[in-house]
Structure formats: structure tokens, C-alpha cells
């Protein structure tokens, strides 16, 4: 049988069979732990992916998956177990997002993220995991092996082919560390775009502790420490009160309906967030709340943003 007519240039280092086999055995070695840390994320109308990066249950995903901070999201582990998480910081510009699994009692299966951004160079082998098309227990997570094609300021491009439902899932290096979060696809098969660890680490280093990352997105101005949601009756309700926050100390409880802030009626989340942000640390706000049909007034002294609070 004649050789297929592919010109092999002797100058260019070829991939030898041994390299391919090493990639295979390394991926197979890392797969069980990587798979255990992979999750499916089900938000109101969509399904996507994410990855647990600490035993305490911190989760990386894409901003277009969770949309905004303080959102309740359903998380499905690889064995089908359903648990809940809440979105923390969201970086709309780079598509990076964090979430926290709510059950703090257990050490969660997790993987590490890569802090050495320089390592993810074009040509390096990598592998992707995710739930393309949504969670499918019989199929399980879907693995892809490929190479890094390009690194930009906030992204990695790879030839690990992605599709809808993969969003938020992890790209790994050959040490089993997370180097990217699936974000976008372009038209060509090789055009798969991941958020690199750069946007995550930038904000991480500024804040350091996970308590701080919890309140990403609350922004400048005074800090109250409540997450809100709109109820079915279109009322503004306290979804959660952040640990150690001024709201907690003042006795604000999850489930309270927020009626007024300093005498102004509060009717939606944007209005409330803006009203809190407009105050400075040290300002006193009067909240009119309702719980189980009874109205009450709570006085809260706003604090600095939690960067300082975490070092108290």
C-alpha cells in the first residue's frame, strides 16, 4: 500500500505516538476527579455547566449563565444529586462569574485552578468537560481533548469543540488545573472561546478571601449586606442576609419584604440597589419591613465595603 501523499516537513517537530499516548493516559488519570467537580447549572430558563474549585463549595461559571449576583441556581452533581447555590460576583465584561454552593457542611469534590497564566500557551494540550445540550445522566459529562490555539488578555481559544449547555464548564491543563471557563463559540469548529483565569485572579487578588468574593457586584458606596429577589406578588423580598453584615446585626431576616428605605417606597431591585449605593459607609438608613403581616422599622448603619470588613 502506497503512503498517503502528505508532505512531512522534517524541520517541523512531529507529534510522536508516545506524546499522544501520554496525553491519553494523563487525561484518563485526571478524568475521575475533574468529572466529580463538574456540575450542571439550571437557572430559570436554561441549562449550563460549572466547576467546583474549593472544598467549601465555591463554583466558577460564566456570567451569561448566572446573569447577576444573588441569584438562586439549581446545581446538579454528576451522580444526579440536586443542590442549590447562589451567584456571587459577575463580570459582564469578561463573562467570568462565581457562585457558592449553599450546603457548607460538606467538603465538596473540587479541582484547583491554575494561577500560572503563562503556562497556557498555544500548542499545549488541554481537555474540556461540560454538559452540552443539558444534563443527561445516561450519557454523563462529555469530555473533549484538544490544544490551546490562542491566548488573549481575558480568553483562551482551543480546538476542544463546545456547544450550548457547555457554557460555564471547565477547560483543564494536563496537571488537572482549571485554565478556562467555556464562554463562546464562533462559526468554525476550532473557534471555541474560554474565559481564562486572568479575570478571576485579578479580582481575587484584590479581595483575597472568599467572604469578599461573595459580595462582588455590590459595588461602591455603603454596604448593607442583603440579597433581594422579587416575589410572585411583585414585592421586593430579602432573599439572603450575608454573614457578618450590618443588615444581619440590625435584625434583617431572609423573607422580610422591603417596603420603604428612608421613607421612599421600594418596588424593584434596581431601585433598591441604587438607593443603597447612593449612601456612604456610616450613613444610617431606615428600612420599613413586613414579616408575617406585621410591619416594622429597622435602623441600619451602613459599613465600608466588605474588603475592610473581612479583616475586622
Amino acid at each position, binding site marked *: 500500500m502506497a503512503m498517503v501523499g502528505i508532505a512531512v516537513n522534517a524541520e517541523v517537530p512531529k*507529534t510522536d505516538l508516545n506524546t499522544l499516548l501520554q496525553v491519553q493516559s494523563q*487525561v484518563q488519570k485526571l478524568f475521575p476527579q475533574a468529572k466529580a467537580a463538574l456540575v450542571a447549572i439550571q437557572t430559570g430558563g436554561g441549562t449550563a455547566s460549572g466547576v467546583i474549585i474549593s472544598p467549601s463549595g465555591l463554583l466558577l461559571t460564566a456570567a*451569561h449563565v448566572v446573569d447577576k449576583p444573588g441569584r438562586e441556581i439549581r446545581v446538579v452533581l454528576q451522580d444526579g444529586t440536586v443542590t442549590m447555590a447562589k451567584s456571587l460576583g459577575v463580570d459582564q465584561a469578561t463573562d467570568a462569574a462565581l457562585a457558592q454552593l449553599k450546603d457548607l457542611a460538606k467538603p465538596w469534590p473540587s479541582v484547583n485552578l491554575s494561577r500560572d497564566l503563562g503556562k497556557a500557551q498555544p500548542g499545549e494540550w488541554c481537555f474540556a468537560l461540560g454538559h452540552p445540550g443539558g444534563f443527561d445522566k445516561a450519557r454523563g459529562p462529555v469530555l473533549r481533548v484538544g490544544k490551546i490555539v490562542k491566548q*488573549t488578555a481575558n480568553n483562551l481559544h482551543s480546538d476542544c469543540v*463546545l456547544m*450550548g449547555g457547555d457554557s460555564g464548564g471547565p477547560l483543564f491543563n494536563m496537571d488537572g488545573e482549571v485554565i478556562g471557563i467555556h464562554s463562546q463559540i464562533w*462559526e468554525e469548529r476550532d*473557534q471555541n472561546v474560554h474565559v481564562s483565569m486572568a479575570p478571576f485572579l485579578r479580582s481575587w487578588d484584590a479581595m483575597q478571601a472568599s467572604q469578599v468574593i461573595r459580595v462582588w457586584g455590590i459595588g461602591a458606596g455603603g454596604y448593607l449586606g442583603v440579597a433581594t429577589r422579587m416575589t410572585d406578588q411583585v414585592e421586593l423580598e430579602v432573599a439572603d442576609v450575608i454573614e457578618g453584615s450590618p443588615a444581619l446585626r440590625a435584625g434583617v431576616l431572609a423573607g422580610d419584604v422591603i417596603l420603604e428605605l428612608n421613607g421612599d417606597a421600594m418596588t424593584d431591585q434596581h431601585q433598591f440597589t441604587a438607593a443603597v449605593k447612593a449612601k456612604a459607609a456610616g450613613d444610617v438608613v431606615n428600612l420599613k419591613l413586613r414579616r408575617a403581616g406585621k410591619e416594622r422599622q429597622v435602623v441600619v448603619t451602613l459599613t465600608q465595603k466588605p474588603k475592610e470588613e473581612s479583616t475586622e
Partner: protein
Amino acid sequence: MMGHSFELSIGLASHAAWRVTVLGPLAWLGLLLSALAVHAQPSRPTLPLEDRTNGHHTLAVLNEFFPAALACVVHIEDSQGKTVCAATIVDGDGYVLMKASELPELKHMHVKLVNGRAAGLREIRRDSRMDLLLAQAIGVTGLKAANFGGTRSLAHGQWLCSGSGKNRALRIGIVSANRRRVPGLGAALGVRMDEKQSKNGKGVRIVSIATDSPAEAAGLMAEDVIVAIGDERVEQFKRVHEIVSKRQPGEVVEVRYLREGKTLASRVRLASRTKVLQNWEGEDFANGGISLRTDNFPDVLQHDLPLVPADMGGPLFMLDGSVVGINIARVDRVTTFALPTEAFWAEVRQWIDFDRQPPKAQSVNVD
């Protein structure tokens, strides 16, 4: 959406929802941003095509010994010499396996052999459960057959390869998901229909057509009024459901319809219903298209090789050249299914044996 009926409503809400929320940004934002990125970052080092996973530098080592193994891959051509799909030689005496739903009939087809010769085909067995078709290249012997091996040892991450296209270009990928049975929901046209009867009481009005669907391929359009499917006149959308859902993906139905006062007819090759519904607006675009039948298989291996629908029917190899299965469906951008050896090979061997030596009529002793 009230008053309009998809061919199937089971699970549609959830499909429709994830299309919009999660697939939307992934696909559309991506397309939007591609032009921007090119301008913004002209100087970033980019891995050349030949060094990518399926580039020829990466594959060079395999190409040194793979041509021998690839000799068991042949192609089926139509009477105009156009390549229709791949086939796998499974026995030296010209027996070949193909994906049945890609070849509704073999009458005008021939097989193009590796040495450039062409041979006519004799259909032996069509199996809709596995979507396989066994035929024999007429008057051909001494072919190199696939060397089938077991697949029980295959695990996630195992390298696999196949030939793609007419020139059998080598492609690699990995076992990417659990081996499993893939259930099916029958066939679909890819039309959304008006639930109300049309004004003159005749036929069913088409409200919209699914992207890349059988209806689109056959030239049907929104506002066409379906008046008959096959020999049966239809007046209600429910009846269209019933007729189509009893058919198999890959089967051809004749649809007669009214357009601007004229009665027209199209032959529509049906596709898997699950896929048509999930891919209603072309979300799962697969860089080369998807197979008509993508589900209802008893046992599949899932892999991530970048193949196209016409590659189905060809063999799936391990790096040592042994064959672990037959590629059976291109499903979406990330998914190809293959039937593993154990799912079909013992049965196909029997079909071949019966064909060689048809069992003689048994003499029956009557006491």
C-alpha cells in the same frame, strides 16, 4: 405560540427555554464578536492549522502506518458518480456495511473501490434497529476487510480515529461519554402547523419550518397548506403527527400541498424527531451538517471526532488499526455515535453466512 402546533409538544418548553437563554449567547454573541476580535488583537500568536489536534503535523505519525488500515473504507456513489456515503468492507468477498437510513435504495448506486474500480451492489439485509445495511459488491473478491476488535476496555479519553471524506483524511478524537442505549421518538418533517383547519376546510397550514429540517430540504415553506401525505388526504394537524410519527428517520414520504392556488408535491426524507425539535432554529449547528437518523440505537460509543454525515457507515479505529465499531450518526457539533463491535458483528457474520449458504429446506419427519 397559542394555536400553533409543533409536531410534538413533549418537553418542548424546556428545549425552547435553553435555546433562548444559554445557547443564545454562546452562539450569537460569538458570531457577533468574531469580527471585533480580529481587529482588536492582530498580533497574538495563534497555533497554525497544521499543529492543531487534527492538523497534519499532529497526525503525521499516524499517517505513516494508517493507510493500510484505511483500505477497508470505501465509498458509495450514485449514478452520476457523486459520493453518497462511506461503507466498511467486512469480508474479502465484497461484503460491505453502510448506514441504512442514508441509502433508502441501492438500485442506482455503486461502490467505488480503493483501486479506482467500481462495482454494482446487491442488497442483502436492511436492519432498522441498528440502522445498518449489508450489501455485496458484485463480482469482487480479495478485498481487505476490517479487523474487528472488542470494545469493553475502551474508557473516556481513549484515542480513536476514522477516515473522513472521499480521500479518507485521517481524523482523531476520543471516547467522550458513557456507552449507552439511545432512545428515539420516531420521525419528523420539521414543520409547525396551524391547529385550526384552514379557511376552506381543506388541509393543514404550515406556520413555520425548522432550520436544516427535512421540510426545509424538500423546499416546503411557511403558508404552504399540506393536503396529503402519501396516499392519504389530511385535514387536521393531529393526523399529520400520527402519519409521520409512525415512520422511521431516513424514510421518504410524499407531501402534497397548496401554494398560491397550485397543488405541488415534494418528496421529504424524514429525520429523527428529537433532533429536529432541539435544533429548531439551527442552534446545534455541526460544521458540516447532521445525520437524518441520530437516535433510537441499542448501544453506542460516543466520540468527538470531527466527521460529517457522509462519513457515517465507515469504521472507527483504535490507534493500532483495529476496528472498534461503525460510525452511525453525526449528531451535533460535539457528538458522533458509533455502533460498537459487540452490538452488531456476531449478527452481521450470521447474515453473511446465510447469504453464502442459505439454510436448506429441512425435511420434516411425520410419524
